[in-house]
Structure formats: structure tokens, C-alpha cells
């Protein structure tokens, strides 16, 4: 049974219009940038065409790809460690009152601390290399997933818990059939925020440890006033962010379709 609110053709038309407006706004921005950049010193700002030719050069000498690979390795490892640690801790935190009491002061302390302030500490503990970077990215990725998992596990619909009780479900069965599935949309929403945080962590880690990857290029290019080269990794990072966020949203629609109407 479908609900005939708006015909599919009309929806299509609206999407089409929306796409045209969004695309032209980006185009207009790029053109304005290009025109404005002509009148400004190339040390301060360069136009999109200059960035594109720098991009071309950095691709052909392999520099960009190896930097992107190094960054992706840190990002993926840190992100993976961050959220795989966050999910079970969030669940245990929600399940046991005592754990809640134990964790609460630390979580509120850590949550209100700007994570950047801890970066030197991570460097001290894990060094300037790969491990230090992963630790920074991991800590950035950790909190959104932790808080969302906790929130998901404590906001299970009480009616669903009653249902499990009526059917005499065991603790494990209740978790398997009720609590964990109802956490899923929360966890995925947490992943969405977490991806953005992890990217911030990535750039910070590449700035404050030994300069490497995309962030490293930004740093070295800006200190040598190669503005066009500096913009290339920034654009890549933006594109990466947009792609990853779209990916987690797709994941949400895919594995928790019942929340699709609510979240958009």
C-alpha cells in the first residue's frame, strides 16, 4: 500500500530543480573566486584554475597519491579503532548503573575538554609517527559514537522491552532482538558525526606530529608560500569528507530504513 502524497513525476521535477540551483550556486562561486583571485597577490589567494593545474602536476609526479594514501591509512585505522572501542563501551555504560556512575565524571570531563588540548599528550605517549596520528584520529572519532551508542541503548522504546518480557525473552535475547537493533540508527548517526571529527583529527595529527600526508602538504606548501599547492590537499579533504558523510547516510538508509523518514 502506498500513500499518494505527491506523484513521483512532481518529486522528480523538484529534485531536478534543486539540482540545477545547487550546481549553479557552486559554479557561480567558482567563477567569482576566479575573477576575484586575478586582482589579488598569488601569495594570498589563487583561483580554481591555478589550483587545478597544481593538482594536475601533483598527480602526475605521484606526490598527491602517496600523501592521500598515507592520510587514508591513518584515517581508516584511527576511525576503526575509535568506533569499535566506542560501541561496546557505550553499551556496557548503558546497561550497568554502576558503570554509569563510574564513567559519568570522566565522560563529562573529557567531553568538555577540547580534544586538541590533549594532542601533545598523545604525541608524548604514542610518538610522532603513525601510532601517534592514529591515537589522535581515534580519540576524535571515539566520542560521537560513544555518546550515540549510549543514547541508543537507554532510549529503547519501553513498549518493546515490555514485549520481550511478555514473551519471556532472556537478557541475551532481549539484547539481540530489541536493544541492539534499536541502537543501530543511533550508532550510524554517531558514525556520521564521527567521520567529520576524524577528519579534523587527521589534519591536526598531520600538523602536530611529523608533517605527513595531505595535512603535511598543506603545512609545507603554506610555509613556502606555494598557495596553489596548499589548496590542492584542502580540496581533496573536503571531497573526502563529503563522500564519507554521504556514505554513512547511505548506510543509515540501508540498514535502518524505518528512520529514513524521520532523519531527513
Amino acid at each position, binding site marked *: *500500500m502506498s500513500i499518494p502524497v505527491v506523484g513521483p513525476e512532481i518529486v522528480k521535477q523538484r529534485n531536478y530543480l534543486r539540482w540545477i540551483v545547487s550546481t549553479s550556486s557552486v559554479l557561480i562561486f567558482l567563477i567569482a573566486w576566479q575573477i576575484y583571485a586575478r586582482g589579488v597577490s598569488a601569495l594570498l589567494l589563487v583561483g580554481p584554475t591555478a589550483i587545478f593545474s597544481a593538482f594536475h602536476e601533483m598527480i602526475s609526479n605521484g606526490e598527491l597519491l602517496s600523501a592521500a594514501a598515507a592520510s587514508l591509512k591513518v584515517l581508516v585505522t584511527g576511525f576503526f579503532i575509535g568506533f569499535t572501542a566506542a560501541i561496546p563501551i557505550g553499551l556496557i555504560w548503558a546497561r550497568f548503573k554502576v558503570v554509569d556512575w563510574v564513567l559519568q565524571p570522566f565522560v563529562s570531563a573529557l567531553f568538555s575538554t577540547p580534544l586538541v588540548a590533549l594532542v601533545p599528550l598523545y604525541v608524548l605517549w604514542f610518538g610522532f609517527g603513525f601510532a601517534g596520528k592514529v591515537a589522535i584520529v581515534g580519540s576524535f572519532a571515539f566520542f560521537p559514537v560513544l555518546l550515540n551508542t549510549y543514547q541508543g541503548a537507554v532510549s529503547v522504546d519501553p*513498549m518493546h522491552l515490555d*514485549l520481550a518480557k*511478555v514473551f519471556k525473552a532472556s537478557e541475551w535475547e532481549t539484547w539481540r532482538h530489541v536493544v541492539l537493533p534499536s541502537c543501530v540508527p543511533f550508532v550510524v548517526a554517531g558514525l556520521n558525526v564521527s567521520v567529520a571529527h576524524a577528519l579534523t583529527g587527521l589534519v591536526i595529527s598531520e600538523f602536530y606530529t611529523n608533517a605527513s600526508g595531505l595535512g603535511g602538504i598543506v603545512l609545507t606548501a603554506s610555509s613556502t608560500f606555494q598557495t596553489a599547492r596548499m589548496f590542492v590537499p584542502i580540496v581533496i579533504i573536503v571531497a573526502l569528507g563529503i563522500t564519507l558523510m554521504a556514505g554513512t547516510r547511505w548506510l543509515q538508509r540501508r540498514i535502518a530504513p524505518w528512520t529514513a523518514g524521520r532523519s531527513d
Partner: protein
Amino acid sequence: MSDPQKVVTEGMALPPAVRTRNVTKYFGAERVLDNVDLDLPTGSFTSLVGPSGCGKTTMLRIIAGIEKAGGGTIEINGVSSAKDVPALGVVFQQGSLLPWKSVQKNVAFGLELAKLDKEEIKERVAHALETVHLTGTEKKYPHQLSGGMQQRVGIARALALDPPILLMDEPFASVDAQTREELHDELLHIWEKSRKTVLFVTHSIDEAIVLSDQIIVMGARPGRVIARIKVDLPRPRTEQSAHLMPGYGQLRSKIRNLLTPSSEQAQSEDIEIPVPRDDFEVIQGMTSMTSNPAEHESRGN
């Protein structure tokens, strides 16, 4: 007037399907249930009506084993519910289907937890869905169904375990009026065929009369039984036929008067049928809110 102490207990050789004695419950310092005695004769349809806060849903939850009573006894088919009684069928309010499970899996939920074998589960789910006329929706998910269909899946889920007792907690409260009437007919039909013992919690007097053999009227603060009323309208009934049966109006105003302060009695008799029932409820709700009848008169005119 009615005799509040009259208990519907005729023709009861075997123990009632559900018998509660002196059930009491506190939420903090507030007494939400005060010595509630219920008898649900086997195969009968009983409704629990009363204002919000009268503890009718709490009473159902205690019988279902979701909550514990503060005191008193509950017997299911003569066995104390403190012992391990088999799962009862419970139909919840809308939204109780698990959104991540298909209709098939939702109806099978209780059967899977009861560790029945796969073939039997499949058979029972198919049968339960057929009973509520939802064959063919097995692969759909709750969010793809209308509110009325969701509640029918909820009924199928409760029926799938074939429990002797069915507890229904305002199951049709949030579906639209027309769907609700269809669901009444469907429920009556299912009940006529299966003759399960049903306890139906509702705040709608009409719903209670159309469906029930007996109506337990509860009062609030503390939640207690104020009347037990036998509904002897002939069966089989339908939503349509019940409203037209002689005695319906009297029964309705009798219950209405039990639920509203005595000062409005005369007035409610006047407004009886054929005023549309929903309007009637609103008018009554408003009069019971005004403490001074004279003041209400002047406002109304």
C-alpha cells in the same frame, strides 16, 4: 441505579481464567491500585474502563507479568501467577511492532522465543496472518503499513502463540474512527470463533459495550473497582448492530454516570443518542471539568 457490588459469576464451575484478589500497587507514595478484585470467566470478554490514572493499564500489566503487584494474589487458570505460567497474549498500543523486523518476523517473535521448530513457526504465522486478513504482507516492514494494519499484525503476533488469555491495552486508541470500527468487527469475529478469555483496557465506553460480556468500571486516586456491569446485549454483535440494540443507550448512560459526578446525571440522560458519540464524549468531559453546574449552563448558552 446500578448495584456496584454485583459480580458477574454465573455458570462458573471451573475456576475463572484470571482471578485477582486484593491487588494493590504503589508508585512511590501514591496508591495506584487499591484492593482490586477481578474475575474473568473462561471464554468471556471483559473490558476495563475508567478515567486516566485509574490504574487500568497498570492492572493489565500486572496480570501480563510485566509489572509486579505490591500486594494481593493473581491466579491464571487457578494457578498463582507467581509460578511459571505460560506466556499470555498481549496486544499493545500502536508502535509495539519491532521496526527492524518484517511482518513475518514480528509475528514469529514470540514463537521463536518459545523455541518452536521452524516448520511450525511458519505454519502458525501464516495462520495468524490469515486470521487478521493480512496474508501477503509477510515481507513488508511495519513502517510500510497503515496504523490499522500494524495493529492487526499486533493481534496476529499475540494470537500466534495460541494463548488461552488475551490482554489488550487500548489497542485501537490511535487509529482513526472508521478503522477502529472495522477492527471492532474483526476482533468480535475472531473472538466468536476462538472464544479466548479477553481483558480489554479502554477509555471508550462505546468500545467497551460493543465488545464485552462484562465491563469493570474503575475509579481514580486510588485506582479501584467501582462497578461491575454485565452487558447482556445479544451476540453475535457488530459495531453497527450493537449501537441499535435496545438497552444500549441505558447501558451507556449508566456507565457514563458512574464516571461523572452525580450533578450531571439529568443532563447526560437528555443528550443520550442520537448525538454523535465523539461529540457526546467531549461535552461530558467539559461538564465534568466545571465544578459548578450553574456556571457551566451560563457558559454553554
